[in-house]
């Protein structure tokens, strides 16, 4: 079956995944492979062969330059062994018969440079592993190392391609890292599709904030696609179509037009207030990652920033951002909003390249590890640098600071103490800042939710991070496709925790907003309002749709819905009921 589709290169193939960002995109695919995964076989047109062969040659050339440099750096006697290893690898890279084996493979099989490099070297490696002598069979590791080095060259070039696109594409990858998506030229990247991921994976968040369609959890999409294949990404239904026939393309173009019209109609309500039919005002804020998105929040009718994620300052660049880098980014964002609220969340790094590359060994269970506020409290220099910039920017507008992943009172006290330290530094240097800056925390762990009444005494606002709260409550890794179907916020346990937090915030008379993905899913809006939420922070492209819902409901309806749901015992019962009531309110959304 698989053989068949390979020969019939243009056979249409329909793949089902999870829709994570709405819209339709039709464009040629651009595939980003990773040296960390097996490279799938990909065919190329015979006319492309010379280009791919040249890519192989360049990869060898650049790998030689890189390795020669590395070898030269190993100077001490202790490094002698490493120097020898590099010398051996260099001989391989200089070996013409190896290079020829790879380019011949590209030529005879019409496959990509990556695939030819990977298969050839793995074939050699497997030859070694078959040798009985352990001293020789272990040499397979050297061959894998050479493979990775060449792939890194090839894929590194590919990543640059994404930054210098000249035509529209949809990006297809096993998964996308923050570093990769940060380099996207958004004028040309029209949609995203990944093998891995769930509703709240990084790919999903980026796609929604860029306002481009995305489908994730497609399992083996990267293996059934070749570069330059035409692809349709249906971000409304979670469908990806590879090599669609003309009839399908025509249908999708028509559907895409209708969807654009709906968006346009929704955009028209952006000037109207977010008020329920019975007159209750709801505040809609935007979640952003880059200063550039602040403008989008305004365009879509957002009234401020409810969550400014600051990790990108770290993931974008090779070096650690300076205090001035932080300040500039904040100043740019605050400039867009003048005196409307901008909530800056301190860095929520963890379980990513930034923290893991600083370790000798990766953490075995990073989501329960040194992440977020814990990482900051152990890296005080870095934490203070950011707080210094936030405080300095606090005089430019209505700036609030928010600490993520607080799990207990002691952590909160520590974070506040450090903030006070930085304030004293600013005082000593006579630098102006807002002495009464509002301080809030994310409630995103069951332990914080259960002790919300205690935590509320020492801060000005809560922000409910429903993604992590759901993940930690249900013990489900939201990015793991094997269990991602178990991930849902519509479960009694999560809803009870949310209700507790809302009630405690009301009792303590502090502000509360919801900033998780739950807030941007139409099904949940009425429920959240009924549970007492009055401020919602969400991905900018979703603001008009959520406002439409707010304007179509009465608080009385919402209260009834919430009461009914809190009496329900199963996820299925709750989601079915929510879908039904939302469909009645906003039929176009479905």
């Amino acid at each position, binding site marked *: 079956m698989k053989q068949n589709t390979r020969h019939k290169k243009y056979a249409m193939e329909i793949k089902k995944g999870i829709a994570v960002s709405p819209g339709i995109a039709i464009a040629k695919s651009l595939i980003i492979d990773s040296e960390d995964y097996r490279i799938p076989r990909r065919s190329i047109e015979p006319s492309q062969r010379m280009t791919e062969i040249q890519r192989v040659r360049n990869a060898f050339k650049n790998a030689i330059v890189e390795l020669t440099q590395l070898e030269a750096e190993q100077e001490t006697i202790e490094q002698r062994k490493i120097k*020898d*290893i590099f*010398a*051996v690898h260099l*001989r*391989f890279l200089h*070996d*013409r*018969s*190896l290079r020829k*084996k790879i380019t011949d493979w590209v030529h005879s099989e019409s496959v990509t440079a990556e695939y030819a490099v990977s298969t050839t070297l793995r074939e*050699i490696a497997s*030859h*070694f592993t078959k*040798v*009985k*002598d352990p*001293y*020789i069979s272990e*040499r397979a590791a*050297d061959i894998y190392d050479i493979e990775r080095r060449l792939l890194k060259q090839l894929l590194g070039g590919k990543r640059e391609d994404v930054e210098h696109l000249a035509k529209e594409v949809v990006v297809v990858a096993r998964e996308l890292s923050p570093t990769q998506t940060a380099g996207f030229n958004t004028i040309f990247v029209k949609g995203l599709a990944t093998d891995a991921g769930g509703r709240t994976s990084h790919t999903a968040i980026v796609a929604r904030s860029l306002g481009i369609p995305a489908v994730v959890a497609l399992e083996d999409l990267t293996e059934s696609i070749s570069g330059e294949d035409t692809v349709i990404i249906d971000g409304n239904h979670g469908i990806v179509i590879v090599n669609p026939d003309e009839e399908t393309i025509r249908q999708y173009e028509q559907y895409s037009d209708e969807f654009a019209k709906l968006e346009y109609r929704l955009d028209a309500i952006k000037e109207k207030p977010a008020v329920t039919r019975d007159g209750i005002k709801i505040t809609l804020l935007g979640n952003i990652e880059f200063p550039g998105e602040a403008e989008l929040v305004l365009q879509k009718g957002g009234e401020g920033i409810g969550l400014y994620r600051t990790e990108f300052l770290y993931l974008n660049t090779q070096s650690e951002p300076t205090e001035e880098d932080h300040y500039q980014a904040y100043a740019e964002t605050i400039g867009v909003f003048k005196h409307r609220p901008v909530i800056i969340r301190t860095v929520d790094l963890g379980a990513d390249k930034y923290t893991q590359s600083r370790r000798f060994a990766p953490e075995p269970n990073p989501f329960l590890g040194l992440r977020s506020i814990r990482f900051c409290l152990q890296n005080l220099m870095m934490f203070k640098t950011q707080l210094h910039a936030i405080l300095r920017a606090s005089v430019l507008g209505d700036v609030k600071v928010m600490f993520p992943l607080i799990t207990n009172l002691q952590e909160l006290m520590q974070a506040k103490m450090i903030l006070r330290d930085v304030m004293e530094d600013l005082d000593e240097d006579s630098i102006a800042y807002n002495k009464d800056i509002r301080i809030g925390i994310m409630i995103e762990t069951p332990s914080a939710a259960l002790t919300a009444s205690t935590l509320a005494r020492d801060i000005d606002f809560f922000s409910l991070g429903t993604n992590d709260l759901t993940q930690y409550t249900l013990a489900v890794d939201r990015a793991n496709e094997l269990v991602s179907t178990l991930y849902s916020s519509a479960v009694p346990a999560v809803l009870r925790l949310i209700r507790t937090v809302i009630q405690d915030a009301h009792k303590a008379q502090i502000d509360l907003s919801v900033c998780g993905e739950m807030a941007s899913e139409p099904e949940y809006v009425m429920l959240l309002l009924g549970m007492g939420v009055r401020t919602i922070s969400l991905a900018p492209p979703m603001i008009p749709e959520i406002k439409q819902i707010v304007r179509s409901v009465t608080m009385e309806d919402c209260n009834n819905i919430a009461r009914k749901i809190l009496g329900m015992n199963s996820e299925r019962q709750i989601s079915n009921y929510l879908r039904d009531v939302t469909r009645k309110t906003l039929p176009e959304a479905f």
Partner: protein
Amino acid sequence: MERVVCEMEVEIKNADGLHMRPAMQFVDVASRFQCDITVSNIENSVDGKSIMQMSMLAATHGTKLKIKAEGSDAQQAVSALQRLVEENMFDEPPPKKA
């Protein structure tokens, strides 16, 4: 130009066999000569100047290899390689006596 053909059988004597570093030494010595150098075991014949092919011979201690050189400096090449493999044993120790 005179075309000399020269052949010799050598035995791998160092304990660890023709692993990566010895293969590199072999290729480095072979590459100093103009002549074509072919190395064979019972099954395969490979280019003595290619580290990929040489290492894939996976010659362990005690393996006998036939070195065949063709070209004007074939004689010198074969002697140099014989010295490297059998006399110097790639600067490595022989197996420990039991």
